[in-house]
């Protein structure tokens, strides 16, 4: 067992009025930014972020330092930093805590990042539902501006930096980076074809870096400790640092926990979240947001070959593999946002699956036919299964629909729908076959009322 880590990202969460500049500064806020902007060169800071091996905290896990390296602005182009605070992935609730409890950490990270990548303006795109968080960020930005940390000469240096909050208006797809950019430009939040990638042609046609809130909030610690030291906090190679884990569902203490990269799901559930609610058996866990394929604790890692990346964990339960971007990919799932949805043995997986697929049906932007139609068909077939109107062939039909969505659309939304759908059928096929034969009994359904479309109320 490792020594307890000193909390970093969450170190100020427990302070009284932690969101005010006075409290944050008394606990060290903006010291790193001041030193970085007045004594260090942007290229050095970029190098630290690269050495930190920080994998993007928004779900895709792309190395942030590498992303920054894609910038190559042409004559006359302005670089933008866009911070993705559109946290909407079912199960995920970590970024809100940063905005509510320590907005100055995010702002300090944004100031350092703007300086490092050469961006004079950053936009923080926050989902519209979080009006409270938006308000808190606005207040914190006003304080930082007043203190001279933003504006024409932040910390007295000749590098203007301004940060604005931009509110979304209820659309999961706007968390997809190119949809976010369209939304920021005042358009419908429909994803763009890539390439060109945002680093080449992003918001307003200019080179743009889009990073998650937690990624940016980690930058002050990375710069203060040095990229190598921060990276070494992790238990895994090539996937550095600490991160905020979340747990929801059937555990005794749902909530957020800061821990090194590379703890196991079993540790997260038992040691951090207090174990299963009512000490019931763990049936399944969705590891990092609804788009990440489900884990089944009864399944063993099958990696007999010595060159297999998971060979060390061969024969152990899926939930004993360290949680990292690469380890989870090798396991056939994704680390995503590291916010787990835990389900005990009372949950019917067909019903849980139907709940999530309704989410995707509602949130598909409708641009691409395989996604718009596929999400609807998945829900229709699952509805039939649950209501006892299904046929055994329907289970393969779900697989067929999902396979025809994957890779056939502009953005990764369809893949994010199809992958968990396929994972559910693969790991809990017997339950789907059972539903095809008998439906899902009334008492077991937790969502059997007809979901009315919420657009256009009344």
């Amino acid at each position, binding site marked *: 067992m490792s020594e307890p880590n000193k*909390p970093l990202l969450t170190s100020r969460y427990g302070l009284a009025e932690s969101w005010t500049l006075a409290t944050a500064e008394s606990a060290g806020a903006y010291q790193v930014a001041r030193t970085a902007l007045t004594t260090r060169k942007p290229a050095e800071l970029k190098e630290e972020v690269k050495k930190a091996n920080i994998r993007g905290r928004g779900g895709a896990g792309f190395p942030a330092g590498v992303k920054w390296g894609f910038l190559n602005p042409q004559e006359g182009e302005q670089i933008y930093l866009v911070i993705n605070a559109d946290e909407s992935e079912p199960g995920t609730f970590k970024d809100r805590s940063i905005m509510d409890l320590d907005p100055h950490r995010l702002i300090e990270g944004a100031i350092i990042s703007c300086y490092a990548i050469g961006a004079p303006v950053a936009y923080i795109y926050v989902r519209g*539902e979080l009006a409270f968080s938006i308000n808190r960020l606005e207040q914190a930005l006003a304080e930082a501006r007043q203190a001279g940390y933003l504006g024409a000469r932040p910390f007295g240096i000749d590098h203007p930096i301004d940060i604005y909050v931009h509110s979304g208006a209820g659309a999961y797809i706007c968390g997809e980076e190119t949809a976010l950019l369209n939304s920021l*430009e005042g358009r419908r939040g429909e994803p763009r074809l890539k390439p060109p990638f945002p680093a080449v042609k992003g918001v307003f046609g200019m080179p743009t870096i889009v990073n998650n809130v937690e990624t940016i909030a980690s930058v002050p610690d990375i710069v203060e400790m040095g990229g190598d030291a921060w990276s070494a906090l992790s238990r895994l190679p090539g996937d550095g640092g600490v991160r905020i884990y979340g747990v929801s569902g059937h555990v005794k*203490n749902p909530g*957020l926990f800061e821990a090194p990269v590379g703890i196991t799901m079993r540790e997260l559930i038992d040691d*951090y979240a207090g174990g299963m609610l009512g000490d019931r058996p763990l049936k399944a866990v969705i590891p990092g947001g609804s788009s990440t394929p489900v884990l089944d604790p009864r399944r063993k890692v099958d990696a007999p070959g010595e060159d297999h990346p998971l060979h060390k964990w061969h024969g152990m339960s899926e939930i004993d593999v360290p949680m990292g971007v690469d380890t989870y990919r090798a396991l056939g799932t994704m680390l995503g946002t590291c916010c787990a949805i835990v389900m005990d043995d009372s949950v019917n997986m067909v019903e849980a699956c139907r709940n999530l697929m309704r989410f995707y049906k509602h*949130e598909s932007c409708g641009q691409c036919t395989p996604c718009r139609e596929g999400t609807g068909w998945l829900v229709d077939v699952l509805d039939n299964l649950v209501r006892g109107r299904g046929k055994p062939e329907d289970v393969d039909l779900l697989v067929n629909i999902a396979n025809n969505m994957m890779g056939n659309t502009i953005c990764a939304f369809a893949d994010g729908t199809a992958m968990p759908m396929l994972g559910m059928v693969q790991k809990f096929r017997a339950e789907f076959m059972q539903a095809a034969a008998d439906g899902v009994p009334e008492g077991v359904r937790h969502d059997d009322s007809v979901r009315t479309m919420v*657009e256009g109320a009344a």
Partner: protein
Amino acid sequence: MAFSLSPERERQVDEILTRYPERRAALLPVLWLCQRQHGWISPDVVDYVAARLELSTAIVKGVVTFYTMFFDEPVGENVVWVCRTLSCDLRGGKAIQEHLEKKLGCTAGHTSSDGKFTLLKAECLAACGQAPMVQINDHYYENLNVELLDRIIDAHAEKGAEAAAAELATFASFGKPQPGSQTPPTSAPPPPTREAVRLASQPPPGSETTNPRGEES
């Protein structure tokens, strides 16, 4: 009757326009200002916004209809969004919705007969660790049970949205008891284990015995 923004909000529009290199980028922020003043995006609001930002009404309308939170029909004084995505449903989201439907006398997607509440289902509102939860207007109310929900709705009806929020709304919290857990827990919260740092939401009292289906026993 033509719509116009209040002078104060007009000044805000001018300030918002300075934030972006393109006028159109102010569309979502300006629509928000209008909806806060008018309650919904009526055809008159669309005309006003189109003229103010030099866009066609079709473009404005296309954006309004894309986003769930812009209302293109009138809504009640308070809008209640009940989260029904998986994490909330595992902790009783359905029971919360059913209780609201009974209490408000209307099903999801409709407005109560006194015009005070519009009840809507929501997709994940990113408060999964504090499930079940609802959003009312600009605020979140988390770690709900039926009694707490009654207090929240009654407070909105009797004292108004602002007073209700000041008393009962929640934000991502640490150490501060959530309104849902104002009665002291029967047992002390568990000591931090290993390097665990517990952040948002203390466990609600009796969470160990919560029926995961959220059914009223």
